């Protein structure tokens, strides 16, 4: 294998990893605050991809408007899911919440089949993302370069919110102690809503990028990237935002490089992610950057 191909694969791995990262952040944020693995989170990729298709085709909005709009709408949709499926269960055992999340996931997938149909739809990828550029002798699609850049920009914005703003401080407080957060005069439901909004709109960005990378949108398109992102979140240390991003990059790179170095392993690509999950759970359940997982009141 030449250095060029290796570099090329490295960039592909970073790019794929940044997609996992975008989605993993939402898993980790919701887990941090509700101790819930939001299994419906991956399906938001699908919701966002369809929404983007309709925004571009039916409403004929330019992508510069429709993509951010879809991020906002998906964020609001995330709040809605919380209100309907999780909020009534705030005081219920955690397992009820988990079951509810799985229910939401099935509901969204099947709703998409009923309303839109199971036949994949093409994604109207704007031409500027499909361009191929020549980078130091490497031929790379610009989308591959834009994806990690977008991820890092969104991550910076998110970290700013979480660490520097009042709402962000309340989010970190709530991740440790609901009751005392309330005793600060903080409307906890609003904080949880903001958490869902942020996580869901990042998932929308991931969904749009995913749909541009693999421009076939179907009701189950969120399942595999959702699972991979969940694994990335666990790998990075669930509850830790930077960890989720690191986990995403490690998983994406690992997946691509394994296939590049051992082409005969190509069909085990998805298995790689699950092997990682099992190994992490066995040997380092707190992940790369996680603190010991604490129960909370």
């Amino acid at each position, binding site marked *: 294998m030449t250095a060029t191909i290796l570099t090329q694969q490295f960039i592909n791995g970073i790019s794929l990893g940044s997609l996992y990262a975008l989605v993993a952040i939402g898993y980790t944020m919701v887990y941090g605050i509700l101790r819930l693995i939001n299994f419906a989170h991956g399906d938001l990729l699908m919701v966002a991809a369809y929404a983007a298709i309709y925004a571009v085709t039916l409403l004929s909005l330019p992508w510069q408007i429709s993509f951010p709009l879809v991020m906002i709408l998906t964020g609001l949709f995330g709040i809605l899911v919380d209100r309907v499926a999780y909020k009534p269960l705030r005081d219920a055992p955690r397992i009820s919440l988990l079951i509810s999340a799985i229910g939401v996931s099935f509901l969204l997938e099947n709703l998409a089949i009923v309303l839109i149909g199971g036949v994949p739809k093409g994604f109207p990828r704007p031409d500027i993302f499909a361009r191929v550029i020549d980078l130091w002798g490497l031929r790379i699609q610009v989308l591959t370069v834009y994806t990690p850049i977008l991820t890092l920009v969104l991550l910076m914005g998110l970290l700013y919110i979480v660490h520097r703003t009042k709402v962000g401080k309340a989010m*970190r*407080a709530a991740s*440790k102690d609901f009751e005392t957060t309330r005793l600060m005069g903080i409307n906890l439901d609003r904080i949880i809503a903001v958490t869902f909004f942020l996580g869901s709109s990042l998932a929308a960005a991931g969904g749009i990028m995913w749909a541009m990378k693999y421009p076939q949108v179907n009701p189950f398109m969120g399942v595999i990237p959702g699972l991979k992102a969940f694994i990335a979140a666990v790998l990075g240390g669930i509850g830790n935002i930077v960890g989720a991003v690191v986990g995403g990059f490690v998983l994406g790179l690992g997946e691509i490089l394994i296939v590049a170095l051992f082409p005969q392993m190509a069909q085990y690509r998805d298995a790689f992610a699950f092997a990682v999950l099992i190994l992490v759970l066995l040997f380092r359940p707190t992940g790369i950057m996680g603190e010991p997982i604490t129960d909370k009141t």
Partner: protein
Amino acid sequence: MLEVKDLHVYYGGIHALKGITLKVPQGRIVTLIGANGAGKTTTLRAISGLVRPKHGSILFFDHELTRMPTYKIIRLGIGVAPEGRRVFPNLTVLENLELGAYNRPPAEFRKDLEWIYSLFPRLRERSKQMAGTLSGGEQQMLALGRALMSRPSLVLLDEPSLGLAPLVVEEVFQTIQSINAQGATILLVEQNAMAALHVAHYAYVLETGRITLEGTGKDLLADERVRKAYLGED
């Protein structure tokens, strides 16, 4: 200012408060003393909306608190230093204090912060430190300071002297008196009955969910039953 009437609280089958009635007049320090498990914390939790009474009423000025969500109760001007300090360990001292001031106008923040730092100079030295790494006593000061950052008109304190060195305990009670002198009304729950009765204008004794005795701090200090049961005399 605060009036609790015939309050009943259950935890599942446990009847924790069996008809509590008490008053906290404006400008006063009122203390609630009693043995472990008497229901002191439960009373404060009911006032702050963290547990819902089955029966009874809690009036704060004209507001009925028993159906109000906690954050709205707090916004009426109530500050709480809960049992066990409960500082946010993953936030710095300063961030903890900022959350205490969550609903204050930002323009007031600096001034309020200076006030807290003057009450607890130690917190200023530690302002950038994670609250989880503070000593127990420092955490207690932080919990107290955080409760005061909202400039509450009523402060609920649940065992603020717990686990503190005797000198610091004295300091805490002095602080309580000084914030009271600055206009805050205080409902103080304490195991340290002696100290609490000394600073309190009025006191209630709670026994297994019932108020069994009440009177001015002075009266209760002189009361034989109190001396036997809570001040360790025989």
